């Protein structure tokens, strides 16, 4: 697995830094990196940080109203953010955010 550091996130000052797992579908925006660093106090901020470093990602993950697209699952470590506060869910340094397309079928 490739690790790539997001240079854009270093300007976020004291905001927590997290690792973001990038699905195959979005790796064109990260130069093929499967994990990138990003920063922000909340999941929403983290996505903003991702967009700054990798333009184009935000529009794939969020819709025109700024809501998470309905076939995108965002996880903070093991928890779906919809079980938390959605995009307002706070993050802590060292956490992992995963972006995963929604698929299911028993």
């Amino acid at each position, binding site marked *: 697995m490739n690790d790539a550091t997001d240079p854009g996130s270093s300007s976020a000052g004291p905001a927590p830094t997290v690792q973001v797992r990038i699905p195959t579908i979005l790796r064109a925006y990260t130069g093929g990196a499967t994990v990138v660093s990003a920063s922000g106090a909340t999941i929403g901020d983290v996505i903003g940080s991702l967009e700054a470093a990798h333009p184009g990602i935000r529009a*794939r993950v969020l819709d025109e109203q700024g809501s998470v697209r309905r076939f995108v699952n965002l*996880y903070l470590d093991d928890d779906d953010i919809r079980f938390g506060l959605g995009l307002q869910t706070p993050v802590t340094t060292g956490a992992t955010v*995963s972006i995963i397309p929604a698929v299911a079928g*028993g």
Partner: protein
Amino acid sequence: MTTVLSTPAPTGAAASGIDLGPAVALSCRECGHRVDLGPFYACTECFGPLEVSYEFAVRGQALKNRIEAGPTNIWRYAPLLPVPAGIAETRNMNPGGTKLIRADHLARELGMKTLWVKDDSGNPTHSFKDRVVAVALAAARQLGFSVLACPSTGNLANAVAAAAARAGIRSVVLVPSNLEQQKILTTAAYGGTLVAVDGSYDDINRLAGEIAAEQEDWAFVNVNVRPYYAEGSKTLGYEVAEQLGWRLPQQLVIPVASGAQLVKVDKGFTELGELGLVEPTPYRVFGAQATGCSPVSAAFKAGEDTVRPVRPDTIAKSLAIGNPADGPYVLDVTRRTGGAIEDVSDEEVVDGIRLLARTEGIFAETAGGVTIAVLRKLLAAGRLDPDAETVVFNTGDGLKTLDAIAHAVGPTATIAPTLTAFEQAGLA
């Protein structure tokens, strides 16, 4: 090969040597973005689910003749599926052709006029999952995968392990470690790799997606070949229509886990109308969930068009998907057709299993109990028309979920082996 590519495949199906019959492309259900056939499942534009698009070569009476001359399994509908023309001759489980049973006794008990049970427990591994896996296997072969895999709540585990054994390829199946013992054993018996994971189905589904991104020659039937897999459920709709004499019922009650089955039955009915095989008469689709995992029912009742995930807690484990990917489309179909979605308690599920068994001699797994219980609940509430011809789906065999009813049924009496004891027990 990768599971989802960032850019569309560079060549068309024909040019790349992929033979998936009438399938011509994958298109996004959300935004319509179109890509060539390949191992893709999520739209590169919006993450929406990709769906198979077709150009059907045969229609009307010619298609009907061809279907009726076909084998008594799902491959009679091969002209409508993403499979190669010679699919019936390949090593596969040949699922489908299950019975549509006229349920007069159950209808009478519920005050209904005409009720049918589509009993898909008659499939090779005793659930409807054999249908979808057979189509997924065909696609996996065409797309060059060498391993058949899945995350499962049990029935899919059985179907994948058996289909891989028949096909002579490796299977890797992930299941929740707290799954019913019957479903663990009936998967392990086929000899593939079976991984019991300490987590919920939704945890395992997420894990499967992550594994699929790394294991490039693994076809996770319900992840990276999901667009093809899901099409297999159309055959439930085709069969019901053909078994009714090429016409559509007025009402259907269908269990909802991921929601794909309900959505694809509707797609199948729509195609039959468009292709001139049935009169496109109106029908109402009703979805059935267990209250302990009812995110789609909750969204329906709240009037919402998105589904908020839940943490499942129900004996209906085959329906225990807390984050159902096709939930929004289930809402679309039920609302468009004038149907509804209802949920029932675990106690009602057990009552539903017993009611169907007692009246029709059909022993359903918990999902079937959910469906029968929802049928009864909707009738009692006046939301289902008792005079309209209705089809309910039993999608799995009760032998797979014996634990669910072990507390509720047993011998009428236990006696000594004498006639006196028999008579004294009042059994004559």
